[in-house]
């Protein structure tokens, strides 16, 4: 079920027949997805359908085991790369649950991250002064106060502040492919709008995005080119942005009923 290609150009990400296990269960059971530069794909689905597992496989979380299929990113075998090599290659995961790291200042962390990427790309590291200039500019995008930079990474941040911090990292690291894993979860409408505005400001003709969400709400703000519905570990339907509206109206039961895979209680 490859969607119609509205975009021309080379393939950035090609997922073929991807199978994965996590927590002792088969979660992904054959995913196919092709993404070209500049495309924004939404992956929707009910809880336990495997949405976050897709994100984690792409970013290389060690606790998720790929049991079959392939993923190519710009022609390279993505699955052979370590998480840090994937980041160097231009993949960014905005975490559903951003980790709190007491004792590491946000600016120290982000500078280490940016410089790791720059070094991998053969660029000079930024010094503290130049880094500060970059960050100040990007913080405006997500309306973040500078005081967050001297605090420990995500420690004591509200849900909205954590998500804004993720988008700030994305803005600073300028990935080729950003994967937003339930970035809307736990956000009130104002925070959602701020985060979405930040993401929209980062849309470019070259940058692709995968927006993973349970609800259509986020897609009112970040309008996708394609919508895929994931159920029980496979994509059961793909379409344009209108598919999200249809889902909102009819619920996931409709899709699941239509694709009677007949596996009661399957998948985590």
């Amino acid at each position, binding site marked *: 079920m490859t969607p119609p290609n509205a975009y021309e150009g080379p393939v950035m990400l090609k997922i073929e027949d991807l199978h994965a296990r996590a927590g002792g269960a088969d979660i992904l059971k054959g995913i196919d997805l092709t993404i070209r530069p500049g495309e924004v794909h939404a992956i929707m689905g009910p809880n336990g359908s495997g949405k976050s597992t897709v994100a984690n496989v792409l970013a290389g979380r060690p606790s998720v085991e790929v049991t079959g299929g392939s993923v190519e990113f710009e022609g390279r075998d993505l699955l052979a790369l370590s998480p*840090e090599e994937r980041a160097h290659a231009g993949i960014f995961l905005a975490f559903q649950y951003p980790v709190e790291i007491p004792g590491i200042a946000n600016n120290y962390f982000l500078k280490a991250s940016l410089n790791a990427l720059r070094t991998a790309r053969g660029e000079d590291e930024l010094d503290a002064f130049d880094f500060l200039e970059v960050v100040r500019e990007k913080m405006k995008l997500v309306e973040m106060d500078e005081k967050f930079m001297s605090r420990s990474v995500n420690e004591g941040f509200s849900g909205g502040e954590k998500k804004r911090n993720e988008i700030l990292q994305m803005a600073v690291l300028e990935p080729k492919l950003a994967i937003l894993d339930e970035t809307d979860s736990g956000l009130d409408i104002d925070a959602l709008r701020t985060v979405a505005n930040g993401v929209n400001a980062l849309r470019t003709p070259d940058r692709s995005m995968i927006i993973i969400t349970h609800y259509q709400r986020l897609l009112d703000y970040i309008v996708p080119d394609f919508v895929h519905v994931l159920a029980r570990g496979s994509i059961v339907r793909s379409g344009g942005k209108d598919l999200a509206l249809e889902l909102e109206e009819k619920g996931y039961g409709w899709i699941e009923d239509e694709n009677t895979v007949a596996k009661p209680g399957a998948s985590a």
Partner: protein
Amino acid sequence: MNALSDQCNRIVAGFRDSAMARRPGAPPWLEPIRSAAIDRFQELGFPTRKREDWKYTNVANIADFLTKGFDRSLPEAVADADEFDSSRLEHALVFVNGRYDLERSHTGSLPSGSVIDSLARVLNEQPEFAEPMLSRTDPGDRAFVALNAAFQQDGALVSIPPGATIENPIYLIFVSTEAANECIDHPLNLIRIGEGASATVVARHVSIGNAAYTKNVVSNIELADGANLQHVGFEMESESAFHLATLNARIGRDAHFTSHAISLGAALARHEIRATLEGQGAECTLNGLYIASGDRHVDNQTLVDHAEPHGTSRELYKGILSNRAKGVFNGTVIVRPDAQKTSAEQSNPNLLLSGSAEVDTRPNLEIHADDVKCTHGATVGRLDDDAMFFLRARGISERNARQMLSHAFASEVIDRIPDEPLRDLIRQRVEESLLMAGREAG
């Protein structure tokens, strides 16, 4: 006769036979103190692993070392200690291989009545300053404190008069060079903070080169009522050295004693603290950080004794162990029957960076009063998988991510260290230790 008691007897006999029992220039009252101390050592003998506080640390190698070298005199201070720059410190007493180094030592302007000097010099020139504290020396059940009292040759005497505030840290720097190989040093530090006075003392143990030596240091500290002392013990002995440190603190009414014990070096390091809250409303804060890699062994023994009401003690010891290193934390809190309204907290989190590193942690509360608030907790964990993945997903290499998280774990203790230049120096050394630990673990 077993080896340990044989070794003990040889040291005692050697002490009595040799000129060590007599010391030219020392005041006459010192002799009976030293003589009583060697008697006490003979009674006690070297501690064995049957003792609760020595259960995890074998003294056989140290006893060997002490038996072979107890009559060896301290080497001369040598020039390569120059790389250790004390000139930018306002108050610094420098001891090189156990000998006071007059040239590298200096003090800035001090309130009148203050003494910051070598103990041996004070004993020769104004012994009345040292007598009260020295005559209160009681090794109790501790063999190494008895040995120190018998064999001590020098150390620091710090006496701050009532009401005085010493702004900048007083550094006591103990440097060991290659010339210290096979030598034994028993420094004795006496620190007295007068009523309402306030000071910071940094006892820094550092090595140039990789000599094998044994240092058995004792610090006797007294805080008068309302006094305030921050004591930073910063141990970076050579990786072939044995380091034994005993700190005794007596804390008066409404006085506040804070200890920061940072242990990064030595083949075997043992840090013992006994703090007694002797006056009402006394406060005792014990911070500790021990980082060990390779085959290092680091043993921390703390005892906080609440003798009077309304006392507060806060204890945080953190350990990071990698490779085959072994850590010990044995933390005892005693609340005496009179010590109502005591508030005591103790915490000992440990981070293991490799499968063969080990830690034994034993919190031990003895509470004999009923209106008290005491908590304790000890954990032994590994680096958090989620945090590791988060950092790596941001492009940070696995090794650097481990380094960052280990440092973050340690920073809770480092952040509490007073005096910014000192804190930065310790942070830097901790970084380096963690790099080494990460390399071995990885």
